[in-house]
């Protein structure tokens, strides 16, 4: 065994007789093993970091939401499969063909289709959490929705619904923030403009106004003008609306 081979072996799991024989005859390698071995061992003394309890909480929340989403995807699939089977039966009768569709087991195409649905897990988790009773769970749902694709209309729709209808102001604010990523979508820009007159909480109104300025959406001018002129609205909000109008000009 050469010195190079011995040194590469020294940190291995099985050192073997050749290694021991080499060490007994090579002082340089003995020194190397002693030095490197000490450093190797001391790595064990580095403090062990422990995760906070939030990791566990978030994991079980995600798992529960996923299972719930999966169950609803399966029931939707079963419903569609039932419709398909009924249509196939009617076709068979109509044509007078003497066979019926197989009644048991799913064909491979069906399984792969189900998998495709499951592939949109982020969507399932986000949607499931946003429907929960607890505001903190709905907040988590919104944070999952941050990862939605612009094409994910269902999640974007749920965010808009949260902005318009959620009873908790923090959830509404988080949903407004989550929509910021979707400036390119004309539907989202429109939805934000439409949401403005319906809001009565100053914090959310200001957040929506800021979002419209970020969107650089001149179509918002009419809604902002009305808001700025409305004496029933909080002064700060009216000033923000006026500021936004100037920014958008």
């Amino acid at each position, binding site marked *: 065994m050469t010195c190079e081979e011995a*040194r590469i072996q020294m940190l291995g799991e099985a050192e073997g007789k050749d290694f021991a024989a080499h060490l007994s005859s090579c002082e340089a390698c003995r020194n190397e093993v002693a030095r490197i071995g000490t450093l190797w061992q001391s790595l064990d003394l580095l*403090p062990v970091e422990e995760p906070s309890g939030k990791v566990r909480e*978030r994991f079980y929340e995600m798992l529960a939401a996923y299972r719930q989403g999966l169950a609803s995807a399966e029931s939707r699939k079963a419903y569609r499969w039932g419709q398909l089977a009924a249509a196939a039966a009617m076709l068979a009768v109509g044509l007078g063909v003497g066979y019926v569709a197989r009644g048991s087991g799913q064909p491979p195409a069906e399984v792969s289709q189900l998998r495709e649905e499951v592939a949109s897990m982020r969507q399932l988790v986000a949607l499931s959490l946003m429907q929960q009773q607890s505001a903190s769970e709905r907040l988590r749902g919104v944070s999952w929705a941050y990862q939605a694709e612009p094409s994910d209309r269902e999640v974007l729709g749920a965010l808009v619904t949260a902005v318009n209808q959620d009873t908790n102001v923090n959830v509404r604010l988080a949903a407004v923030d989550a929509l910021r990523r979707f400036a390119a979508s004309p539907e989202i820009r429109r939805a934000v403009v439409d949401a403005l007159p319906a809001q009565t909480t100053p914090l959310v109104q200001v957040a929506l106004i800021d979002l419209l300025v970020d969107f650089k959406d001149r179509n918002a001018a009419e809604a902002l003008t009305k808001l700025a002129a409305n004496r029933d609205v909080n002064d700060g909000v009216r000033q923000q609306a006026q500021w936004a109008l100037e920014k958008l000009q």
Partner: protein
Amino acid sequence: MAEVSGGQVARLAVLFERYHRALFRYFVSMGGHREQAEDLVQEVFFRMLRYRTSYDPAQSFTAWMYQIARNAGVDQSRKRRAVVVDIDSFTGLVSGSPGPEESASRGQDLALLRRAMDQLPGDKREILVLSRFQGMKHEDIAEVLGCEVGTVKVRVYRAIRALEQIYFALEKEKVS
């Protein structure tokens, strides 16, 4: 994992309880903040669910898990630059009851060692983390990194040598 892959997704909880601490330590050791590391742990378990049908029971589970972890880490570092762990955030020793002077000295040595780890290039740090902190077999590391077992042995040796050089350089710096 084979059960999870087969549709019993609730069984993922068993894997979570067994591995989430090791994954967290992996991400922290790779230079992430605690919060980032926790997000990444969550992401790894999410991806396990997402890609569960790609799991091959003939494959080592830990190798598969760390492949996912590496990809999650790479994806995140693309999104935001990883921040080096604050060396002042840890103190003290793991076990034993040394006197106060010895504690201070060993604490400083460990702080230096940690700094040396943080200064190691990412690939060298990773192989030390996998082989030393995560206690993975060379065969499993080879699977994670997509190389031969022999290459892993050479890389581990080179990484510890590089760590030694950085450590002594830092020590010299401290003395002067």
